[in-house]
């Protein structure tokens, strides 16, 4: 009896688990180079940015660098500008992206062509879109010309002269490139809504507007949240567009860090502002994980 028990136990503990663990170990080998690489070139740099940010130029630990950027007017401008561009950009992208997605979700003639044309900006490199936007928003640019011909304005507008106008310009330029991505995410969300719901609503006499408010929007919430977060994080990190369109006059967090390091050679203030940016992004990701749950992100 006792011997049999021992043998029963002996079988699983000796044969199967060892085979399984050997198999698992072999599977994990493939991961090693990737994890080592990301550890060395992502984790270590981010940690050293954190360390740099919490030391000042004399090497003292503490909030010295953070305090010195906090008193720098360009830094507070950078924070406000980053948040303003994000807010403006996201509202534009979600509004336009939703409109485009709703239109594309229906059957249309030449659907493939329309979709391909709408997706063009997504593929355009950021610096190229900045170049194109320069000729659109220049003082002798094409937007002024179109507005003039339509009789909206008599004198050209300096789109990047005034700070708030420049923020709108940058947000529009950013939205031009990424609205197609929002459209794709929302379109995928729309296509996952069962047709029967609309049919049932129609039989019950609900109009198109009512259907949109009561069926489309609530069921689109996961897609909307995802678009909001993915785009929000990208917008926090915006770099090339404000630099190329408005230069130093319109600092955002990324370009502020860049100027502090490459122009003034101050690693600590550059790191400190990167730390603020990092915190903003981590908070956003945290909020999303709370809202959606980790499974939702990856499915």
């Amino acid at each position, binding site marked *: 009896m006792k011997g049999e028990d021992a043998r029963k136990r002996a079988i699983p503990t000796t044969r199967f688990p060892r085979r399984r663990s050997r198999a698992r170990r072999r599977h*994990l080998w*493939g*991961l090693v*180079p*990737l994890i080592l*690489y*990301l550890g060395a070139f992502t984790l270590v*740099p*981010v940690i050293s940015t954190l360390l*740099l940010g919490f030391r000042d130029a004399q090497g003292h630990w503490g909030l010295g660098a953070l305090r010195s950027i906090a008193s720098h007017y360009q830094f507070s401008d950078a924070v406000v500008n980053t948040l303003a561009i994000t807010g403006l950009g996201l509202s534009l992208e979600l509004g*336009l992206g939703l409109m*485009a997605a709703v*239109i594309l979700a*229906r059957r249309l003639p030449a659907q493939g062509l329309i979709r391909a*044309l*709408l997706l063009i*900006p*997504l*593929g*355009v*490199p*950021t*610096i*190229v879109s*900045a*170049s*194109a936007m*320069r*000729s*659109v928003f*220049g003082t*002798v640019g*094409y937007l002024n010309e179109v507005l003039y011909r339509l009789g909206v304005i008599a004198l*050209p507008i300096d789109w990047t002269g005034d700070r708030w106008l420049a923020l709108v310009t940058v947000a529009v330029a950013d939205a*031009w490139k990424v609205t197609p991505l929002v459209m*794709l*995410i929302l*379109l*995928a*969300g729309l*296509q996952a809504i069962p047709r029967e719901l609309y049919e049932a609503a129609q039989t019950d006499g609900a109009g198109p507007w009512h259907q949109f408010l009561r069926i489309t929007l609530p069921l689109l919430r*996961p*897609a909307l949240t*995802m678009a909001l977060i993915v785009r929000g994080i990208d917008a926090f*990190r915006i*770099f090339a567009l404000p*630099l190329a369109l408005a230069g130093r006059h319109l600092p955002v*967090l*990324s370009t502020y860090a860049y100027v502090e390091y490459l122009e003034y050679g101050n*690693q600590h203030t*550059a790191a400190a502002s*990167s*730390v603020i*940016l*990092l915190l903003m*992004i981590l908070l956003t990701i945290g909020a999303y994980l709370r809202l959606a749950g*980790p499974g939702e*992100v*990856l*499915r």
Partner: protein
Amino acid sequence: MKGLRWIVLAALLLCATSPLYLLVKVSVSPPAEVMTPHPSLIPHAVTWRHWQRILSSGQITAPLRKSLVVASSVAILALGLAAPAAYSLAQLPVRWRYGILLGLFLCRMLPEVSIALPVAVVFVRWGLQDTALGLMLAHLTMVLPVVAWVLTTTFSTIPRDVEEAAALDGCGTWRTLTRIVLPLALPGLAVSGLLAWLFSWEEFILATYLTLEAKTMPLQVYYYLYQGNWFVTAVAATLMTLPVLGLSAFLQRYLQETNLAGAVR
């Protein structure tokens, strides 16, 4: 209602396509047509002057070459590093896989400036500033999470039965991989390689931090933009967009069919 839909669609199409149209138009327009208070919207004359000027200036070949070298190496290295990882990930239990993918996702969301700063500081010390190798290493940090992600999806669609059948027929591990798994994963490998290439081709922030003299294409375009010559900027920008449009048209077809459809369900 139906009419309204078409009006909105027409407006969206116009907004989506016109900036690129204007860029190309500027690149082939005589200056008199553009640098006036009232530039013409339709090309009245076409000139290749700016294109000739750029292509014969000798300023563009070095950036083109550097960008090509970096982007191609990034694509190849990313596949080499991420494919084994993705193959492993695809075989892990779902919980583990999601955990690691979530970690990769977080890596991708980190601000570039917080990675670029210490990397630039160290690369100056190592003599990697301004080199193709240094930029490549930096680009890989941003590319690897995405490539590993796409490839994990690819590998997890390959049924384990196929591999087991091959093993039963006497294929060794290596043979199973090269004869069975890799051919089946080829579309996914091609797509993620292209994604990596495109990312590196247009990457701006890391390149700015790691470059002094040897510019890449995006930095060269920025340089022209900064100088304020619209025509030269437009030519360089159009030049760097040409390969991108072709490749991304191919990619978008794949992206909308497979990845995003499942992304939010």
